[in-house]
């Protein structure tokens, strides 16, 4: 049987992982729950302090997905019967070319959008094949 968790360890876990014990490392949760049962007042005070910061973090703004982004990502997805990876290049190449033509035709009226499209296209071509992709398989 392992040693009971100390208050110092409990406080350190709360400081790192916050006030929800369910988010703590799995291996330490049972010991933490034993300590909470044995010394509920102190444990609750330590968790309360951590939960105050958790609550502040919950107020951080979220980033809703714009429809245009969702549609662009779906448009670039593999198509049944298409060569792997081909769709993304085709869609982005076409998208960039279309944006460039539209920019000339409209006298750069849509300059902001064009700049964004070009930035995406440039980033993709820059990072595409050469960028290190994390290991996929074991």
């Amino acid at each position: 049987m392992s040693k009971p968790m100390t208050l110092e360890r409990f406080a350190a876990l709360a400081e790192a992982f916050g006030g929800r014990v369910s988010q703590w490392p799995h291996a330490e949760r049972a010991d933490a729950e034993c300590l909470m049962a044995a010394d509920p007042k102190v444990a609750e005070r330590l968790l309360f302090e951590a939960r105050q910061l958790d609550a502040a973090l919950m107020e951080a703004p979220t980033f809703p997905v714009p429809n245009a982004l969702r549609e662009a990502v779906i448009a670039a997805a593999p198509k049944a019967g298409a060569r792997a990876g081909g769709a993304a290049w085709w869609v982005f190449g076409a998208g960039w070319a279309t944006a460039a033509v539209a920019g000339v035709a409209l006298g750069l009226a849509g300059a902001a959008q064009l700049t964004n499209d070009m930035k995406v296209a440039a980033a993709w071509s820059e990072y595409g094949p050469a960028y290190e992709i994390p290991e996929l398989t074991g």
Partner: protein
Amino acid sequence: MSPGRDPDEDLVRRAGRGDPAAVQALVARKLPRVLNLAGRMLGDPAEAEDVAQEALLRAWKQAPGWKSGKARFDTWLHRVTLNLCYDRLRRREITGVQLPDRADPAPGAHEEMQARQLGVRVQAALAALPERQRSALALCHFQEIGAMEAADIMGVSIEALESLLARGRRRLRELLLETAREEGLA
């Protein structure tokens, strides 16, 4: 880590075969997560959208031959996203690019700005953290990823992750208190 059964594996394979329903489902499941991770890391919605798009495009390239091995798909996707964010943060350092100051609120937006005040302070405090601490907090707190998996994504030990989180949270608390005092709120 031992990933166990990957809950996304079947969906990724179907998406890789061009199944439109699987594509839609995968986008609904992953795009908000990837976008929010990039947003927390970069603090700039437009850049976060670029990164999210790049990350999903990488996923589409890998999907046809996807096999869950050491990493689950979600772990892999978070790692790709973080790498893209690190790369952008480094480019900012090299070019000295700073994020633009927030625009003045439009007339009538004052109440909305007040309502968002704490959120804005939190985002600013997050942006002031060293990037590894910010990554650890983004993964564990905002993405609600378990400690083992977050450590795996970041390529650090569980002890190192705990240290990053603890230092990050302490610094965040200090920064939030400082700004609250400056604004006469504490």
